[in-house]
């Protein structure tokens, strides 16, 4: 069963592009990363899924239910973590957490207590006195205390220190292992590569690619690094050429036999051929697609 499925989802803000014909599928149980630069359409897609904004055309379903007709039922199965967490001034942390649970008509006291302990959150503080990171923690508790089936998170780690980021992902992995689906947008490609099993790349409102993180890493160029050479191989399929102090490096997506033949013509002290990291793949889409 699909946790999220969008079909030709399109949103324009007046004449400004939001997203265009986005076909996205997230399967139940996925730990899914949604990658794209600022203004690519990540938040627009998320806001449409939550019913905060309406698409101009196309459709979206969550657990097989239409986001327009079954919105409330869908929202009771979702925990949403916004990129910027804003709360009502003057309220204490415990009141915000309780207000969120009350809106869901659930008693989440025990789970909220556990989460606050793990995130080291002082529930007696007023939300307007909190730092960005602590506000994020309040939002995380509100997102997770009712144990939803689907977590939708927009730039979830912004503002969290590295230790808290680790605790946060540990919580997400636990929930994912219990069967929950995680859908998170991020700029931090290393965290997508580390935690997600699937990912999609969005650029200028269009979904460029959606696949497993393993396939995304494999299906494109290798990073070739040559040490101790002063001559440059010239072969079709080379790009992103980088000259460092004692080495040269490039991405290669052509025939590996041709590469070996070409390298054999040069004096080389050492050689590494590695899978590029997700960041390089991400950049690949920009160089290849005319950025």
């Amino acid at each position, binding site marked *: 069963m699909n946790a999220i499925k969008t079909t030709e989802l399109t949103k324009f803000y007046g004449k400004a592009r939001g997203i265009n014909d986005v076909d996205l599928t997230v399967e139940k149980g996925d730990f899914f990363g949604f990658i794209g630069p600022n203004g690519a359409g990540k938040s627009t897609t998320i*806001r449409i899924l939550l019913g*905060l904004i309406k698409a101009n055309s196309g459709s979206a379903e969550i657990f097989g239910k239409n986001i327009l007709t079954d919105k409330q039922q869908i929202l009771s199965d979702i925990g949403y973590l916004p990129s910027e967490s804003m709360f009502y001034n003057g309220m204490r942390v415990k009141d915000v957490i309780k207000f969120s649970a009350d*809106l869901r008509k659930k008693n989440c006291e025990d789970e909220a207590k556990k989460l606050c302990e793990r995130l080291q959150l002082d529930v007696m503080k007023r939300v307007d006195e909190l730092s960005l990171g602590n506000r994020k923690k309040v939002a995380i508790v509100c997102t997770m205390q009712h144990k939803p089936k689907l977590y939708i998170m927009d730039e979830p780690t912004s503002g969290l220190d590295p230790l808290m980021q680790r605790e946060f992902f540990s919580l997400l992995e636990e929930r994912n292992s219990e069967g929950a689906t995680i859908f998170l947008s991020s700029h931090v490609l290393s965290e997508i590569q580390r935690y997600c099993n699937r990912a999609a790349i969005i650029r200028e409102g269009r979904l460029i690619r959606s696949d497993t993180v393993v396939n995304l890493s494999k299906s494109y160029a290798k990073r070739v690094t040559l040490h101790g050479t002063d001559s440059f191989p010239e072969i079709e399929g080379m790009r992103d050429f980088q000259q460092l102090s004692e080495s040269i490096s490039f991405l290669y997506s052509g025939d590996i036999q041709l590469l070996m033949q070409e390298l054999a013509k040069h004096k080389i002290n050492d050689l590494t051929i590695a899978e590029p990291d997700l960041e390089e793949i991400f950049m690949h889409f920009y160089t290849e697609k005319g950025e």
Partner: protein
Amino acid sequence: MTILKHEIKQGKISLSIWTSAIAGLLACCVLIYPEMGNQMDEVTEMFSSMGSFTAAFGMDKLNMGELLGFYGMECGSIIGLGGALFAALIGISSLAKEQKEHTAEFLMSHPVSRVRVLTEKFCAVILQILIMNVMVLLISVLSIIIINESPEWKVLVLLHLAYTIMQIEIAAICFGISAFIRRGGIGAGLGLAAIMYFMNIIANLTDKAEFLKYITPFGYTEGADIITEKNLDTKMILFGTSYAVIAVVIGYVRYCRKDIS
């Protein structure tokens, strides 16, 4: 009820301040009445000979020598204008503050329909107005008892009922406007209340502008008319109620379709 309770909690300080200010000023006015009572015949005579100004504030029909006449004039201005400003303030900020403070995203990402959000928020606005008016009426009655006066209580209650209906109308119109604006709009709300107030003064000045009384809710809160007629003008109230209902319905339609950003 969760949102309603939350709104009441959020607005309790503002409600306490406005209620204390209006009730306090009103109590002061009533408590100084015995001191002024002896001079009131002269004051009435003076006020009644001020031409258009006399008519503008309905002083041509009020006897300032009687408590109700004094109350309709002095206390009416306090509750009328003060109450209208409070109603405009809470009405206009009810929805717009969520957008301004970016809390709408938090609220709307919970499993609550927009109709429920609007209904509970509107009920909270009405409830705050009712709480304020009940408190003000109680303080007023207490003040009158303290000075050993016994006015026609029915007329006094009618006066307060008119002010309450007027405040609900203004709050409803501002609530409707609130669905359209992204920023606070407090200036717009207070401005609207002030325009309505002055519209009634203009309507009192000349017969040609009397139609304005069917536009401004201050038309049916005219103390001079209520005290002399011992009744409320149901025709004007019906007009006012219609404006309120239309504004709220338009607000609902707009907000249910609005993109929350």
